């Protein structure tokens, strides 16, 4: 056993020597977290501002003008044009000169004054479903607040206020100010350690195949567990180091809160890295060149990231896709990171995704170790 550890120790030393001699790779490993966090957290924002707004006011009354004012004065919408026919306003939407068009029908004021209710139509460009949702929410808000101002205008008996109107008031928990970076940074940290783990480990063994040293290693009495431990441990360490660097930047640079415990984060990360490294090793054993390995790793990386709930919420995916994400380790780690950092979840609260990750780790490593043979056939 002592000898076994000595061999692993030397293999580790050799891997680190090689990693630190790789002048192309080293800066990337350490600069990547900065760039990813800074760019992704700041550039990709869910806020929708200055929406080009088109008005089709067929009523032309004081009340309709007042409603339109509510929109243009809200700060979210920019009036880019007015027209009096449906055809014209749709044309504007198609041409991209407006993303939303408010249609106030003829008799809007009259209906309100006599029956106490009237209808308006919002035509929203939903090419980008997410923005469309946000625009709709803004619009609903504006219409709601417009309703509240009506009591002073409407004839008695038609006003809803005073009759105990139910007002829905929402407040955001866990991220009360809806700070985008608070939400994104934990997820981006996951992508970061995944990148490092999957690519570095995926490239490593196949590189030994490419340069032929794998044959030299295979004829040595080195045992399979020694080889695999020696190959995975360096990247496990680098991955956790990368996470640490990312957490420091998140705390100091983005002031992302950390309500949970760092111990939980590291425990989960330690297990998660095993999943990723096992996958990398598996890719390495199935491919013959770094190019092939890169391609496959990239394929999984894209799918995992897009289906992780990092950029688009999992709840809005079709049912089959939601089920599919259960097999996605990135999804679970993103989920856990957000819960721990923003909600202060402890081990008990994250036990089920953590169990899935553990099972993934066992499965991946078993597959990879089984696929790696010191004898070819």
């Amino acid at each position, binding site marked *: 056993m002592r000898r076994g550890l000595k061999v692993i120790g030397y293999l580790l030393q050799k891997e680190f*020597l090689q990693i630190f001699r790789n002048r192309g790779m080293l800066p990337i490993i350490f600069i990547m977290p900065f760039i990813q966090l800074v760019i992704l957290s700041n550039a990709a924002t869910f806020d929708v501002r200055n929406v080009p707004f088109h008005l089709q006011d067929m009523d032309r009354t004081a009340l309709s003008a007042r409603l339109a004012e509510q929109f243009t004065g809200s700060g979210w919408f920019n009036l880019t044009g007015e027209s009096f026919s449906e055809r014209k306003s749709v044309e504007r939407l198609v041409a991209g000169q407006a993303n939303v068009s408010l249609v106030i029908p003829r008799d809007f004021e009259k209906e309100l004054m006599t029956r106490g209710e009237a209808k308006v139509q919002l035509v929203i460009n939903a090419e980008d479903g997410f923005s469309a949702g946000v625009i709709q929410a803004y619009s609903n808000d504006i219409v709601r607040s417009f309703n509240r101002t009506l009591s002073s205008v409407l004839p008695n008996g038609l006003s809803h206020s005073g009759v105990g109107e139910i007002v829905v008031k929402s407040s955001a928990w866990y991220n009360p100010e809806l700070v985008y970076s608070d939400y994104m940074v934990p997820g981006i940290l996951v992508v970061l350690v995944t990148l490092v783990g999957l690519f570095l480990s995926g490239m490593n063994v196949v590189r030994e195949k490419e340069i032929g040293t794998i044959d030299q290693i295979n004829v040595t*009495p080195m045992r399979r567990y020694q080889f695999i431990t020696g190959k995975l441990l360096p990247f496990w360490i680098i991955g956790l180091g990368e996470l640490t660097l990312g957490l420091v930047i998140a705390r100091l640079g983005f002031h992302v809160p950390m309500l949970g415990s760092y111990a939980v984060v590291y425990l989960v990360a330690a297990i998660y890295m095993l999943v990723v490294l096992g996958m990398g090793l598996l890719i390495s054993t199935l491919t013959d060149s770094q190019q092939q390995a890169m391609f496959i790793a990239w394929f999984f990386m894209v799918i995992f990231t897009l289906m992780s709930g990092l950029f688009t919420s999992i709840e809005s995916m079709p049912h089959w896709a939601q089920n599919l994400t259960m097999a996605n380790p990135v999804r679970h780690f993103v989920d856990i990171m957000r819960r721990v950092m923003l909600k202060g979840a402890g081990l008990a609260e994250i036990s089920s995704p953590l169990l899935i990750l553990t099972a993934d780790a066992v499965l991946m490593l078993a597959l990879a170790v089984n696929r790696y043979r010191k004898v*070819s056939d």
Partner: protein
Amino acid sequence: MRPAIRIAGVEKSFGDTRALCSIDLSVATGELFGLIGADGAGKTTLIRILCTLLLPDRGKAEVLGYDSAAEYRSIRSRIGYMPGRFSLYEDLSVEENLRFFATVFNTSVEENYELIRDIYSQLEPFRTRRAGRLSGGMKQKLALSCALVHRPDLLLLDEPTTGVDAVSRKEFWEMLARLKEQGITILVSTPYMDEATRCDRVAFLQEGRLLAVDTPEGVTALFRAPLLAVSAREKHRLITELRAFPHARSAYAFGSSVHYADLRDEVSAAEIEAYLQSKGLRDLSVAPVKPGIEDTFMALMQEKGGCDE
């Protein structure tokens, strides 16, 4: 004494390509054994089976008394293998490479320094240089040092001299001879026929089939047809004309002249000279010559290799 290598009926195919067909071969302990053959003859496949990297489809290979399939672990700690392609870590230094291989074999450079001193002393001035920046001959010496660092009983060298300059090649064979004196059995493959004479015994491999296994002298003696060394001003046309001669067995370039073998038991230089003169070749010289080992190999290569017979 039990042989260092015993191969019985070993066959290996890659898809539809038959790399080895029913090989039987035995290498004695302490022997310097040469495996001669052109590219694609099956040399590398055979060596990879012996160093337990490949499993034979059929047959059995015993290395140092251990079965190559069942007891590969016992074999691996006792052999030194040098693949055909330089395959050490180019981004590690000479010293780091050597220490790495010593450690994975559970030994240290110091423990077996005696054995490699001869070779490694030439590398010592470049101890801290990255292996990737060494010259071809130096790389080869480093690879040999790494294969020797755990004092193996058997060395398996796959084309160690391919792509190495003539001086380094000569030095390399001298190193092998000294290792043999230390009691290490060596199996070395090479496409260079002239290197055969440096071995105790050689095997000639052609398209997966062993065509001759003998001492260099024994292999040379296989060649019995009369042989002439012929030279003329136009060498290419000379070969064409010689091959067109009705009794020609073979004609091939050999150094600066052409070796011509006849199908008949006897041939006179005068007859050939007259024939060539009639074809208009000038500056002729024709003389009988004693066949060397390369002539045998050239003759063997005319024979059909391959597995179907």
